[in-house]
């Protein structure tokens, strides 16, 4: 068996950084002048933990700064690893290649954005005062809020770090059980994050719902996994793959087990009809957390899904995967459901939640195109590239949108769309960025959202357009002869058209409604910078050299992922 020494820690740098961050988070804010008296002596030895805290570390900002630094360095290290093409394996549970590094980068970057937004969303004030009897109710409440925020800084960021740890390990696991455990680590922490604002009614409710539905989904998933174990006796992905390929006909244990796991991951990515708790969770959670769920959590779900669908159950080239049809149907239902439901949503967070459901549908459509088995390695890579690329840039513009909502949320309400009213008059740059995010979500060129959507449609068409009859001379004979996966492309296109309605509506509201208040938005200087940076990147990743290099990286990642088989 492997010993711990076999695991090269230098390839787990992001995880190690996050662990260290966690430790520091626990230790540093608690540093104080506590002394312990040596027994039987009068000597007091400073133990530094507890007591009156040092003024330097008693600052409630410390945890968020630690989190930001941790995530930034983890993200950076992931990038470095990615660029260095670091590959390593620690069989049977961990494997590191470009794919995993890319996803660690995505996760940690998303978490970095979460921490930056949370820095303003969960403001900490060093001059918090205890309310006394003289205060009015309002000022009392605000004081209590400040105190509460100060107190729970550490909790929040530790949870974030745990989410990060779980996610990064999900990407790296090559053992199904390991994968699941890490997924649970991330999930459980995110349930708490969703319900973090326990003082508000919706916070608790959102947490409950998300937790209940999520737990049921993971219970189903674990059960499915146990079935797989019954079938194979081994949950290593490589072994499962092998067994799957040597399987003559579909074993019911295997089939049902995989299906059940698909349900669990379907919940994570927000596929219909498992997505129903997502909008509630997003709207109940604070915007940074919602952004995290919409980007990193979804990406994590997709990683897990890809592991199952593309590695384990993928048949030999030329054969159709058994899940293809089901996934295709689900993807169409998902995107349509998401878009339709978003159409009339008055809550921007719900709207974005539904939109992220729709995006999941697009990506699943692309996945099911791989499932047709029509493509060779190249074209499969292309589609996978599209999906990964989409997941990557989604962090930019979807999270960007949630960061803008964070700004709005700070001043009261982001639960109705009217919070965005007249944003352009209050803050043109933020409004413009929001508009760019919306257009990118809608897939309007030349923004990066367009490029990813184009690549996905591209991939589907690439696989399917060749299947039509070559000898057909009329349109209809061709249409009847083409693989039905082709219509997924059309479905995506029509759905993009529907989605324009609500994305543009945001633009409309920002530009035309009279603002509820004329007060300028929060200063939140770093958040602003981040938003603008995200908008810029959204633009630059759409066309030009940056998109080129990003595509190259993603493509290599996709190759490294598929090469495993």
């Amino acid at each position, binding site marked *: 068996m492997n010993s711990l020494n076999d695991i090269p820690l230098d390839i787990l740098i992001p995880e190690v950084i996050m662990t260290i961050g966690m430790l520091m988070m626990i230790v540093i804010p608690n540093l104080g002048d506590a002394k312990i008296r040596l027994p039987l002596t009068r000597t007091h030895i400073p133990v530094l933990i507890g007591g009156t805290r040092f003024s330097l570390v008693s600052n409630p900002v410390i945890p968020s700064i630690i989190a930001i630094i941790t995530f930034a360095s983890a993200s950076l290290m992931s990038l470095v690893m990615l660029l260095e093409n670091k590959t390593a394996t620690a069989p049977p549970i961990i494997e590191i290649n470009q794919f995993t590094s890319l996803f660690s980068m995505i996760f940690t970057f998303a978490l970095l954005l979460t921490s930056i937004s949370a820095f303003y969303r969960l403001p900490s004030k060093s001059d918090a005062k205890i309310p006394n009897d003289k205060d009015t109710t309002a000022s009392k409440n605000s004081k209590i809020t400040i105190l509460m925020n100060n107190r729970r800084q550490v909790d929040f960021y530790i949870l974030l770090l745990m989410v990060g740890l779980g996610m990064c390990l999900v990407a790296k696991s090559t053992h199904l059980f390991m994968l699941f455990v890490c997924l649970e680590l991330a999930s459980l922490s995110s349930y708490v994050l969703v319900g973090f604002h326990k003082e508000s009614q919706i916070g608790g409710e959102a947490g409950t*719902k998300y937790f209940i539905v999520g737990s049921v989904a993971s219970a*189903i998933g674990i059960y499915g996994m146990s079935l797989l174990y019954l079938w194979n006796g081994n949950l290593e992905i490589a072994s499962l793959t092998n067994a799957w390929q040597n399987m003559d006909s579909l074993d019911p244990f295997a089939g049902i087990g995989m299906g059940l796991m698909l349900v669990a991951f379907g919940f994570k990515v927000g596929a219909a009809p*498992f997505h129903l708790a997502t909008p509630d969770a997003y709207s109940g959670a604070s915007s940074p957390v919602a952004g995290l769920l919409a980007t990193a959590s979804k990406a994590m779900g997709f990683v897990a899904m890809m592991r199952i669908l593309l590695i384990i159950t993928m048949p030999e080239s030329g054969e159709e995967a058994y899940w293809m049809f089901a996934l295709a149907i689900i993807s169409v239902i998902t995107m349509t459901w998401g878009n339709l439901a978003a159409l009339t949503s008055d809550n921007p967070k719900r709207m974005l939640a539904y939109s992220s459901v729709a995006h999941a549908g697009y990506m699943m459509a692309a996945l099911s195109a791989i499932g047709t088995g029509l493509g060779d390695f190249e074209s499969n890579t292309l589609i996978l590239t599209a999906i990964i690329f989409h997941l990557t840039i989604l962090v930019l513009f979807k999270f960007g949108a949630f960061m803008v909502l964070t700004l709005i949320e700070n001043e009261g309400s982001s639960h109705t769309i009217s919070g965005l009213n007249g944003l352009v008059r209050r803050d043109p740059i933020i409004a413009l960025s929001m508009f760019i995010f919306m257009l990118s979500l809608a897939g309007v060129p030349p923004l990066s959202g367009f490029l990813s959507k184009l690549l996905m449609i591209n991939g589907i068409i690439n696989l399917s357009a060749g299947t039509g009859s070559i000898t057909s001379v009329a349109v209809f004979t061709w249409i009847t002869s083409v693989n039905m996966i082709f219509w997924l492309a059309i479905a995506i296109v029509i759905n993009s058209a529907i989605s324009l309605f609500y994305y543009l509506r945001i633009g409309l509201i920002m530009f035309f409604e009279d603002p509820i208040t004329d007060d300028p938005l929060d200063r939140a200087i770093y958040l602003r910078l981040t938003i603008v940076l995200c908008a810029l990147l959204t633009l630059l990743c759409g066309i030009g050299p940056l998109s080129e290099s990003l595509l190259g990286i993603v493509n290599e990642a996709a190759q490294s992922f598929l090469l495993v088989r």
Partner: protein
Amino acid sequence: MGQNKHEYPLIYPLIPLLLIVPIMKYALGMDSFDAAFLIILVPLLVFPTILLIGQIYNKNIMWKEKYKEGGVLALGALGVSLYVAIWILFDYLSENQQFSHHTVVEWFQWITFDFLQSDYTIHPETRIIGVGIWIDSISLMILFVATFLCFLICWFSMGYMNTDPINEDRNHRFYAEFVLFSMGMFGMVLADSFLWLFIFWEIMGLCSYLLIGFYYWKVSAAYAAKKAFLTTRVGDVFLMVGLLILYDIYGSLSFEVIFDDPSTGVAGALVESNQLFWALLLLFVGAVGKSAQFPLHVWLPDAMEGPTPVSALIHAATMVNAGLYLVARMVPFVDVHHNGLAGLEELGIIIAYIGGITAFMAASIAFVQNDIKKVLAYSTMSQLAYIFTGLGVALWFYNTGHHHAATIAFGASMFHLFNHAMAKGMLFMASGSVIHEVHHAHDHIHKGQNNNNFDPQDMRNMGGLASKMPITATAMMFGSMSIIGVPLIGGFWSKEGIIAETWKAALEEEPLMFLPAILILATAGMTGFYMSRMWLMTFAGEPKSDVIDHVHESTPWIREPLLILTIITAIGGFILSLFGIIDFLASETDHLKMHGGIISSVLDTLEHAFLPNDMNTRLIGWITIFLSFIIGPIMAARIHGGNLKEGEKANPLIGWLVSLSSKFGSQDVSELSNSQMSKALQNRLYFDDMYEYIISKSIIPFANLSAWFDRTIIDGMIKQIESKAVLGSLQIRRVTTGSARDYILMAAVGTLSIFILIWGMGS
């Protein structure tokens, strides 16, 4: 108004323009036809000049007084055109010139393109639609008529328009549009291809629209303008399709190519007469629209809403002649002696029928008109119809090979165009003079307040003007005589020919021609009646309203054109006949000259007119003279004739005529004028009502239906998609009940359906 005598010096600055021709001829060594571009170019450039200067310097005293709000510029431009036209005319007529039968000058290539043949190769020759001029006897004649009359009418307008306060500050528009209109006519006549003919033709349509709607605030004027444009547009569309067919046949629209050999089309293919027939018929529809023939005649009476000079311009000098010119251009197609195509007789018959019907109809409507300009308008329609009949007959003769008869009919028709244009131009100007002075008198009495709905154009308000307006009365008398066809005067020389040839065709060759023949013969008599009626109602008898006593013939710029045209009308027809104009116009000769000495030619001509060899012709001729000269005027005199008021004296000729008119007794026609027939005639035989009704019941509802369809069905479908999507959205959002139990249930259902999908598809 006022100090009139001093206005003539205004045109002194134009005198240097007289140097243009000498300079071009001697200094630049140009040929006359090389200078023809000036005829078009100068008005074309003056048009925006007047418009812009007028708009900028509007209300400027100097602009008003010195340039007559652009009148002087317009006059100069038209003068140049006239001058060059005369130069060309002289060149053409003088024998030492290089003119062949016609002349073409190519200016520039308008558009060029290649043609894909049916064997999928590009035709080696690039096709060119060019711009140039084409001159032959017909175009020269019409060019002269147009330039000459435009010049005179412009001259007249400077008196007529600038003295009317209602026109103040708007005259630059009038002159600019006037000049453009003239340009259109000149261009059309000079054009060397059917396409450019059509282009200028349309320009005239535009200008007629602008000028008829000159009094833009009048609802009736706006309506009339629209009606004129649209009615002619209907014809124009058919004309355009005709051009397309012609182009398809010949691969070109230029006269030179087509007339070279009309029987062979593009690439030497033989032309099918059937196809050509349709082409020509469609061209004729265009002509019908432009020349206001039945059934597209409805616009012309309404067009009297424009200022009187405009009426003169449209009816005499320019627009209505365009249709005639176009039909005249059809001759080479049907002339079987010169490569024409046989089998197009029906075309001639159709044209003659349309002409006959229109002539009769217009004349009968003219019986009951009381508006002096309306009478003239219907007379125009009627006379044009004469010409159409003549042309139809000529085409028929040409096509059946009766070359000589065809020449006479054709020449006579063209000559009638000349006579009619001169006479009608003068008549309109004279009527303008009457209207103007009556209006002034009325203004003078009532201090500009028109509270009793006095209509200065209504002949029932006139009478007895012979003594007040001697020049006008004389001019109008000669004009009417020319139209009536009083022997020796103007129209007589041409009308005789038309009627005689029509009858000849009917009697000798083609029984179908009887109807037009009878109709135009009847019309001759009716012309005699209504023209006399008009003159008598206006000038003879006692004044029928108080304003007449205050009428003076005092406005400047008005008399000269009248005088000039009176002379031309009175003796022009005879003199030109002496010179063999009919043969010239029919392109039988290239020159105008007398055969033999003066005396013998005079005798020849007279004999030819009154005592032709052919018995039928002689009979018809005398019947015509009898009807038009004796019966018609006497009937009119019995109803409307009468002496002037006591103490009023007119000049001898007119005085005699007035007193003669009272000699035939009087007849009360009030019963007749209240009859159904009269009502129908007064309502223009209900054509306008009918068209209006049809349009209001078909086109407008259909347009509204289309708009509704677009809004409700096509756009409605889009809106349906939108609203259905919103509805679907609300529905689908209701699935998210908020209850976690339902979410789990849905997830379970989803799980089940996944398995159903997987295994359902697998088996």
